[in-house]
């Protein structure tokens, strides 16, 4: 069970960062960390002790494979994470152009 607990701790580290940090890029990094922990959690769920990677060799099939469905889910979710990151990055560039700062406290509507 330690693995799961550590995974949750990683999630909470990200959450802590997202709440307390005051820098736009730092917030994005915190979100990525949370993303990582969720991906890892899904991959952990699918793991089967002694199973092999879900790629069948028709010549010598293995007895036990790990669950491919969580992997498919994570695959989709990773791409979505990249899309979100790219969007956030472009917004940050624009905001920096307008305000010359990345500090959230100096940007009017984002304060608080």
């Amino acid at each position, binding site marked *: 069970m330690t693995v799961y607990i550590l995974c949750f701790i990683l999630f909470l580290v990200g959450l802590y960062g997202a709440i307390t940090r005051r820098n736009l890029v730092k917030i994005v990094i915190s979100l990525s960390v949370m993303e990582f922990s969720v991906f890892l959690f899904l991959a952990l769920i699918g793991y089967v002790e002694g199973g092999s*990677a879900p*790629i*069948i*060799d*028709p*010549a010598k099939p293995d007895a036990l494979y790990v669950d491919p469905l969580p992997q498919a889910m994570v*695959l989709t979710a990773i*791409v979505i994470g990249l899309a979100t990151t*790219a969007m956030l*990055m*472009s917004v940050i*560039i*624009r905001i920096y*152009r307008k305000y010359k700062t990345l500090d959230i406290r100096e940007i009017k509507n984002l304060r608080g």
Partner: protein
Amino acid sequence: MTLIVKKTTQLLAGIVFLYGIYVILHGHLTPGGGFAGGVIIAGSFILLILAFGSEFMNLTREETGTTLTENLAILAVLLIALAGMIVGARIFFDNWLPAGKVGELVSAGVIPLYNIFVGIEVAASILTIFLALVIFKEEITK
């Protein structure tokens, strides 16, 4: 970047591109597939841009057609999915080509086709995002 980087990048870019195609085409046999291969293909262009600057491949503007390529490819994916409603069992996302023998290069019905088009789409998308973040912002300042 120095001469060393430029020369090596030239050598490597072709290999990277070929490797991306390998990953895409073998998506149903080995790990990878459309997404990973697409990003690797985009990586070969990114490598060249990093080493030589964006004027090198005339990839200076959005008008290079990356968005057009991307949209054509994703439209092709959608059309393959819709083709299942016309040929075969008349179902959305039907695998309407014969499955073939497991482990061969030509097998798995339409999956390689999806892989190829998703790969093109992803390559164009990543390249567009990179160009947008790296080059278009120059235009904002002007």
